[in-house]
């Protein structure tokens, strides 16, 4: 016999609803933090014990609630944040559904104490497992404190799905960090099992907050707007990108969001220097008309929907791409900074580098460099022009515990590379150069790859990609799938200067190669490009072309092991200066140059 349909008891309905909102302790903290921020709090303390399972307490100095509101707030769909359906389409608060407190109360022992600043006394509401609310008078500081004890005590099935306590604590920490990033003016303290793990003072602006939140990251910041969207971004160098987007914090109208498309839009802005699947670390704030964003997509409000989704994503990619390309991710890496801080007791300063076009904060004044000897000064050590293992060993010794740093700030300066004096080629792999500020070691392959990529891209964009026809087309024996791919991508291959035809079921012929790539082996080039073009489904076609051009540049570039003449070395440096963007990185994201400032060198050698 089938069961009869019946209306569920409200307590059970609340528990089911709680499943969507209260997934784990971190979601409780998120909801309570949002309530505190919506109440205008300037200081919030989050305390947790045992990963949030036995205790979560969020105390704020916000507006507080009168007794009647306090009694209502634990009822389902009771909220002060919206009143009509029109409000749903222009939400300016973090919460609005009126679901959080009743959901939390239905799966825990919840005690809320609150007092408006103007009131003489406050109220206390106690709810156990979704039961009736007990209201009483209570004395206390202005603001609200919500204490959640024994989370999921009445839903043991949920407890089984919680991770280890340190993992849950870390999740709470992430939620608090995102809230702190979203609201720089908020002072936020997180206490975990009696120990403060995060203590954020009020910050004057978002960039200062980012700097305080990520002292170990070297980020480059950009500020501006496009198409009615205000953007503030602080992003890391390509070589510091991570697999996965969890280190990329995205905010839309001060709301932390997890949006894969938005994260991809940011990653795409790096072009080929960021391989598919990798995302930069950093923060991106977007601010736009609330009417253009739908936050009512999921109860957790971590997802948003844009009214002009495609335009916002494309606009963001283009806007960032313009800026990232000329960014000078500078300064020693985090470990390098710590190294000097620990050993010399001096800090090299902040790692947040404002982009030239932005009005960001940060930057540090480097000590004035000593003048380098004149180009025609005598060379008593016979070092100039020396090529070989001795020089390589010396450089390796001097730079042994330096991180391969991001490009120096000088990279952004016009004529930086041309101003370098080449001391020699080491291990037929590195160009050792002397500049005004220190010694610079360039990776010859990465440098030439960047130059060729830039030339290819420019020619491609201007539809002037010159090809060199092969007298006898290169026959490539391949699998049937590869031959089919050649047939499928025939037009794209022709556009990137690699026209191919299918001769037979498993034979294709390469008729020409881009004239810039005389060093490339056509068959290998074709196979690699097919792999990139196959990714066109994952990325926009333009990105697939970028990747294909990057592969082509890599194949055609000077290789490690190539001995270069002085003329070739000089030409390479001049060409690097002509590069449009990302001149400090090869198209696949590796740094081109590693620098050792003179003052570091002098310290190391005890001068």
């Amino acid at each position, binding site marked *: 016999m089938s069961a009869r349909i019946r209306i569920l008891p409200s307590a059970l309905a609340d528990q089911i609803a709680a499943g969507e909102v209260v997934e784990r302790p971190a979601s409780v903290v998120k909801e309570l933090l949002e309530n505190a921020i919506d109440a205008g709090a300037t200081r919030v303390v989050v305390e947790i014990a045992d990963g949030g399972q036995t205790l979560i307490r969020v105390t704020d100095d916000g507006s507080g609630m009168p007794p009647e509101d306090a009694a209502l707030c634990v009822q389902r769909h009771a909220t002060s944040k919206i009143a009509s359906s029109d409000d749903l389409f222009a939400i300016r608060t973090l919460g609005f559904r009126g679901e959080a407190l009743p959901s939390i109360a239905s799966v825990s022992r919840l005690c809320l104490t609150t007092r408006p600043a103007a009131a003489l006394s406050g109220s206390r509401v106690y709810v156990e497992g979704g039961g009736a609310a007990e209201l009483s008078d209570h004395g206390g500081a202005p603001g609200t404190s919500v204490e959640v004890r024994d989370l999921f005590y009445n839903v043991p099935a949920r407890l089984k799905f919680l991770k280890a306590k340190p993992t849950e604590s870390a999740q709470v920490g992430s939620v608090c960090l995102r809230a702190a990033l979203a609201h720089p003016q908020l002072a936020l303290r997180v206490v975990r099992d009696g120990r403060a793990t995060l203590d954020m003072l009020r910050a004057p602006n978002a960039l200062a907050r980012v700097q305080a939140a990520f002292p170990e990251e070297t980020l480059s910041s950009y500020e501006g707007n496009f198409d009615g969207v205000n953007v503030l971004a602080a992003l890391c160098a390509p070589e510091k990108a991570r697999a996965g987007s969890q280190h990329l914090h995205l905010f839309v109208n001060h709301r932390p969001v997890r949006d894969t498309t938005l994260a991809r839009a940011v990653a795409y802005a790096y072009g080929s220097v960021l391989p598919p699947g990798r995302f930069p670390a950093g923060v991106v704030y977007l601010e736009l008309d609330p009417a253009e964003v739908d936050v009512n997509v999921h109860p957790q409000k971590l997802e948003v929907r844009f009214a002009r989704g495609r335009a916002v994503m494309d606009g963001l990619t283009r806007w960032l791409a313009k800026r990232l390309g000329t960014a000078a991710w500078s300064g020693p890496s985090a470990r390098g900074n710590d190294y000097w801080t620990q050993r010399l007791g001096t800090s090299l300063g902040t790692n947040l580098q404002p982009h030239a076009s932005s009005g960001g904060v940060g930057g540090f004044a480097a000590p004035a460099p000593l003048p380098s000897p004149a180009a025609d000064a005598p060379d008593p050590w016979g070092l100039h022009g020396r090529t070989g293992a001795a020089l390589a060993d010396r450089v390796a010794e001097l730079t042994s515990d330096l991180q391969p740093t991001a490009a120096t700030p000088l990279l952004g300066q016009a004529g930086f590379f041309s101003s370098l004096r080449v001391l020699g080629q080491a291990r037929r792999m590195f160009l050792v150069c002397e500049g005004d500020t220190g010694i610079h070691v360039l990776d010859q392959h990465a440098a030439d790859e960047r130059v060729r990529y830039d030339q290819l891209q420019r020619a491609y964009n201007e539809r002037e990609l010159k090809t*060199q*026809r*092969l*007298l*006898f*087309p*290169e*026959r490539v024996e391949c699998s049937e799938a590869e031959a089919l791919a050649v047939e499928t991508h025939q037009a794209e291959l022709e556009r990137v200067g690699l026209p191919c*035809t299918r*001769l*037979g079921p498993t034979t294709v*012929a390469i*008729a*020409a190669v881009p*004239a810039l790539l*005389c060093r490339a082996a056509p068959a290998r080039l074709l196979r690699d490009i097919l792999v990139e073009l196959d990714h066109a489904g994952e990325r926009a076609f333009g990105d697939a072309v970028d990747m294909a051009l990057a592969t082509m540049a890599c194949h055609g570039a000077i290789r490690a092991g190539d001995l270069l003449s002085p003329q070739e070395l000089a030409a390479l440096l001049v060409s690097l200066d002509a590069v449009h963007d990302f001149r400090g990185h090869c198209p696949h994201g590796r740094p081109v140059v590693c620098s050792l400032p003179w003052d570091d060198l002098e310290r190391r050698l005890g001068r």
Partner: protein
Amino acid sequence: MKRALALAGLTLAELAQRVGVALPAEPRRDKGFVGRLLERALGVKSSASAVQDFPELGIELKTLPVDAQGKPRESTFVCHVDLVRIADCDWERSRVRHKLSRVLFLPIETHRELPFAQRRIGSAWLWSPSADEENVLRHDYDDLVGRIAAGEINELRAHVGQAMQLRPKAAHAGVRTRSNDAEGAPASAHPRAFYLRASFTGALLQRAFALPE
């Protein structure tokens, strides 16, 4: 042109299979096979030597056997010479100029060690003489025709001419054709034809495919 480009990279065996003809058992004894195969593949209708291979397009088809370094292995036949009438025909009206005004070259890979069936067809390219090239050809033509008119046909050797030369062209050494002597009296000589020198076509190849000099 599209059809010619589509042949690039195919071996002679593959092309023969596509066209539906058998490869000769002894290719050395059938020197014109490759030319005929390509003409058939490209749909050349005319076989008359007086007109171009693609008269409606004004294009002459020429195969160019090249070695592993991309150098032509032999000179390229242009056209037969009418030893009696050629003295009255200047460069502008000449069959040589007509044939060379637009040439579709088809390189054929021809190494000694490469089996005939595996020889590849190269990238076709359309050539028309530049002003400089035409000047050189005209100079050679005038020089060679001048010597024929002077009745020096039997003394004319293949070293004469910078880009173009005159060489015997007959099935065997016993074949003779009509000519005139120095006074204009009828005489006989071995049939001759104009050929482009390998150095000339080599330079064209070098420019077209950026080959090392």
